[in-house]
């Protein structure tokens, strides 16, 4: 979307180096760039100080591009639950979870069977991209 050439006159040398990364397969993807320029490299406190962690909204959304949701939850960020743009799949899962529980309860009542439903919830702690959106309760 951006046209780097437009405000970078005379940059042919590195534009061409960008255009042909040696034998590379994928073009530079924004998430990969942000992951690195926001989070990596040499971190020096400049004279202008803006704590990137203090930046909210879009930047946090960007940080979430690169941070997993469970990491964000660790940081106490959970706004996406109320963000209709982003929370659909989380809501979907939560909703499905709720429906399953209701069915399970109904089944248990019906059959008098007291099976446990715990196994639907546990396992794979670190692997939570999808399930982390589900409020755990």
């Amino acid at each position, binding site marked *: *979307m*951006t046209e*780097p050439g437009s405000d*970078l*006159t005379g940059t042919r*040398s*590195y534009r061409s*180096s960008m255009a042909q*990364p040696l034998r*590379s*397969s*994928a*073009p*530079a*993807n*924004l*998430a990969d*760039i*942000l*992951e*690195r*320029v926001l*989070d*990596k*490299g*040499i*971190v*020096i406190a*400049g*004279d*202008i*100080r*803006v704590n*990137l962690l203090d*930046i*909210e909204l*879009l*930047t946090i*959304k*960007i940080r*979430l*591009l*690169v*941070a*997993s*949701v469970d*990491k964000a939850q660790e940081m106490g960020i959970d706004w996406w639950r109320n963000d209709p743009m*982003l929370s659909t*799949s*989380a809501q*979907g899962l939560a909703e499905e979870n709720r429906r*399953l529980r209701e*069915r399970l309860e*109904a*089944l248990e009542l019906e059959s008098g069977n007291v099976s446990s439903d715990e196994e*639907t919830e546990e396992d*794979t702690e670190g*692997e939570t*991209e999808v399930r982390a*959106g589900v409020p755990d309760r």
Partner: protein
Amino acid sequence: MSQTGKYLYAVIRAPAPESLTTGYGLRGQPQELIEHRGLVAIASGVDLEEFGEEGLRHNLENLPWLEEVARVHHQVVQFVFTAAPAAPLRLATICLDAEAVRARLDALHDQIDAVFGRISGSAEWGVKMYLRIPTPAAASVQQPSTPPAEQAGRTGAAYLQRKRNEANKRRVGEEYAEEAARSVHTELSAVAVASRLLRPQDPKLSGHPDKLVLNAAYLVRSDREQEFVTRSEEVLAGQDQYELVRFGPWPPYSFAGLDDA
């Protein structure tokens, strides 16, 4: 009337290659080389209206702005990197003037110098490995959504069982995938000087539907690049359930931290 500051892109060791005197940075401003004690910072002037504390706080919220600045930052770092071993700086590192930049170079001289000990002659390669998920959502979407309470009998049981089966299948696939990812990582690390596991990118936001099972960066010496590339191409041969995305050579962002030693 508006003040200017120095936006820093990268640091290299002196002497700076001639080619670096010709580049441009953010907003078309010419690159400046600020040298101090054998280190050279690549910088360009920025308007503090836009890049001061006030401006940044506001602008960083603006996705198109952030994207553009990040891309230009990356391009300049890439440009520098093609000319000399370069230690990238984090986005939006800004000093008030060249003197302040020299003071930073002075204070951090030894640490920065140590970074070059690690990264010289090497580049960063990014590798992401996806497990192609046979869209578990598709199965549930096909089912017309049934009111939960009413049909909790046989249908409910079958539904539940199917859900469980699906979940189990998925889990098994993911366990295999984790193992496969570990072995890919081991394979590739063997050709690299150093490696870093990066955080998984969230599929909800990155828009990539498949499950990211490996997001890693490798610091690879230039004389082993070909070997690295070949290995990355062969390591998952015949395993169509995975997709491996590789990019590089990049400036060694993930290996230039001052306290990574």
